[in-house]
Structures are given as structure tokens and as C-alpha cells.
């Protein structure tokens, strides 16, 4: 037993264990996604998160300890954002030709996301700091946190709402867009990127490269637009 305690105390001090656990949980989530025939509701992010949360809870590990290992994966979000330049560059002819539809979808989608989220929450009696934290939830995490903080919201709560929005978007997008009969990969990708940022973009890349590139574009443009829209729309509910 002492041996196990010693091994555990080594592992709990080093980032190796939780970095490995993160990659393992994702491999399981990704394998389940593939085994299901790429069904949208078998979402790899959701599966990995539930698995890891269960392990942390069962082993009594704090999130800060987990993040010591997981931060190496988390760090790559920045370089991945820069890497989105590649699909944007390779689809630049699509993008240039579709400037008007892109702008229409961006403004309509972004405004709908902020306005409907605040209206629904408001009808449930949600107000104050929580309502503020909800406003930028469709923007990509680093931008949403900055906007939330600037307006007097809670950045941690915003982070939660941003991640949940992404997972919801990744799950509902394909059945919803099929139901609506939207077949244009550009329209599908852009709308998902605007509504569900990077997690939606990751999902769009799983479906079609053009959808992925347009989702990345929608995410980037919406990051900028939300910074202006969220405070203005929030004003209507205060």
C-alpha cells in the first residue's frame, strides 16, 4: 500500500498523469464518435469531459491539479486559431465571391444569438451579473471572457456558458440544418461558426472542409462583432 501511495504522490505532483488522461479520454471519445458512424450527438468533447470529470471526482483531484497537466493541450488553442489562416487562405475564392451572403449571415446570426439568449434568460427572471455573463456566449472563449469582464459579468461563468454553447451547437447543427434543408456547405459552416465558435468549427471540419473553413471565418468575424453587439443588446434588458 505504501508503494501505491508513493507512486500516487509522484503522479499527482507531475503533469504527466493528467496530460495522458486527457489524451486517453479524447481517444475514447473520438473512437466512440467514429464507432457511432459519426453521429453528432456522440460528441467527443462531451464524452471526454464527462469521463475526466468522473475520474477527478472519484480520485478527489482538484481542477487546478488536473490543469497542471492539461494546460499543455489548452495552450494549443492559440496556435490552432492562428492555423485557421490555412483553410481561410485555401477557400479565399469562395470567401471573396460570397461576401454579401457572409455579411448577411454574420449579422443575422450574431444578433439572433445574443438577443434570443438574453430574451429567454430574462423571461426566466435572470438578471444582473448572470445575464451580463450570458451575452457574449457565442463568441470564442478568449474574446467572450474579455467582453464579459468589461461589461461587469463573471468571466468564469461566461467560460462555462461558452463551452456549453459550443457543445450544444456541435450536437444540434447537423440534424437542424438537414431539417431546414440547407445544403450549401458555406451557409451551414458559417452559421455554425457564428453560433458555436471553435467547438462548432471543430464539428464542421469533421463534416466537410468547406464547412470547416466557413465556420472558422464565422467564428473569427463573430468574435469582433460580438464585442460591439453584446453591450448594445444588453442595454435593452437593463
Amino acid at each position: 500500500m505504501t508503494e501505491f501511495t508513493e507512486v500516487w504522490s509522484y503522479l499527482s505532483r507531475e503533469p504527466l498523469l493528467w496530460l495522458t488522461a486527457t489524451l486517453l479520454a479524447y481517444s475514447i471519445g473520438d473512437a466512440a464518435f467514429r464507432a457511432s458512424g459519426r453521429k453528432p450527438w456522440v460528441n467527443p468533447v462531451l464524452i471526454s469531459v464527462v469521463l475526466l470529470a468522473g475520474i477527478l471526482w472519484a480520485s478527489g483531484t482538484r481542477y487546478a491539479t488536473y490543469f497542471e497537466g492539461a494546460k499543455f493541450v489548452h495552450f494549443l488553442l492559440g496556435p490552432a486559431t492562428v492555423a485557421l489562416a490555412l483553410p481561410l487562405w485555401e477557400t479565399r475564392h469562395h470567401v471573396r465571391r460570397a461576401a454579401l451572403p457572409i455579411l448577411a449571415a454574420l449579422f443575422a446570426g450574431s444578433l439572433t444569438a445574443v438577443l434570443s439568449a438574453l430574451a429567454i434568460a430574462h423571461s426566466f427572471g435572470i438578471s444582473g451579473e448572470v445575464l451580463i455573463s450570458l451575452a457574449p456566449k457565442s463568441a470564442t472563449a478568449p474574446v467572450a471572457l474579455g467582453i464579459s469582464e468589461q461589461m461587469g459579468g463573471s468571466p468564469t461563468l461566461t467560460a462555462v456558458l461558452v463551452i456549453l454553447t459550443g457543445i450544444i451547437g456541435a450536437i444540434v447543427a447537423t440534424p437542424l440544418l438537414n431539417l431546414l434543408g440547407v445544403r450549401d456547405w458555406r451557409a451551414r459552416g458559417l452559421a455554425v461558426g457564428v453560433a458555436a465558435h471553435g467547438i462548432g468549427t471543430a464539428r464542421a471540419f469533421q463534416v466537410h472542409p468547406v464547412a470547416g473553413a466557413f465556420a472558422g471565418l464565422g467564428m473569427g468575424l463573430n468574435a469582433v462583432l460580438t464585442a460591439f453587439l453584446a453591450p448594445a443588446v444588453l442595454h435593452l434588458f437593463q
Partner: protein
Amino acid sequence: MVHALLILLMCQLLGEVSSRALGLPLPGPVLGLLLLLAGFAVFPKLVDLMRPLAQGILGHLSLLFVPAGVGVVGHLDALGGQGVGLFLALVGSTILAIAVGSLSFALVARLTGNTDD
């Protein structure tokens, strides 16, 4: 591979530095993205150098959200009595935003005669 990684990190670094130094509303990585796009326009050969690394990272974009996602679980109880309202707001607004966004795109594309190839 090393050169591609170096270019990626340098774009992000330059983006972070200029975003903070100039007080821009854009986050550093988004500025880094614009820098890399500008790089592609000036040096078209850069595209082939960056492709394997960029495709590798973007192919597993979902993985990168897992650490932040695990943090969500610790906050779920903090949502308390407002949980139901917030959850419905997230589901409702995400469905509406995807529907309105995609239909606006399709409508304007049709009006301007801009169809997919």
C-alpha cells in the same frame, strides 16, 4: 515541421504583443491569424510549409477544448436555481442563431445569384 511551428508561434506572439501594446479589441491569436494570412499573400510558398502542421492541429481541434470543458463541471452547481433558465437560453439561442444565420446566407446567396460550385 520545426519551421512551421516557429512561424505559427511567432504569428501568435506578434499578435499578442500588438494586441496588448495598442489596446486593440481583437485577441492576440486572431491578429496572429491575420498576420499569417498576410504572410500567405506575400510568400505563397509558405502555404505548403504550413499545411502539414496546420492540418494536424485543426484535425483534432475538438481535443483542445477538453481541458476548459472539464473546468465547466466544477461550476455546474454554482449555476443553482438559474440552471434551467440558462440551459434553455443556451439551447434556444443556439438553435435560432444557426437557423437564422444559415437561412440568411442561403437567401442572400440566391438573391445575388451566388450559388455553391
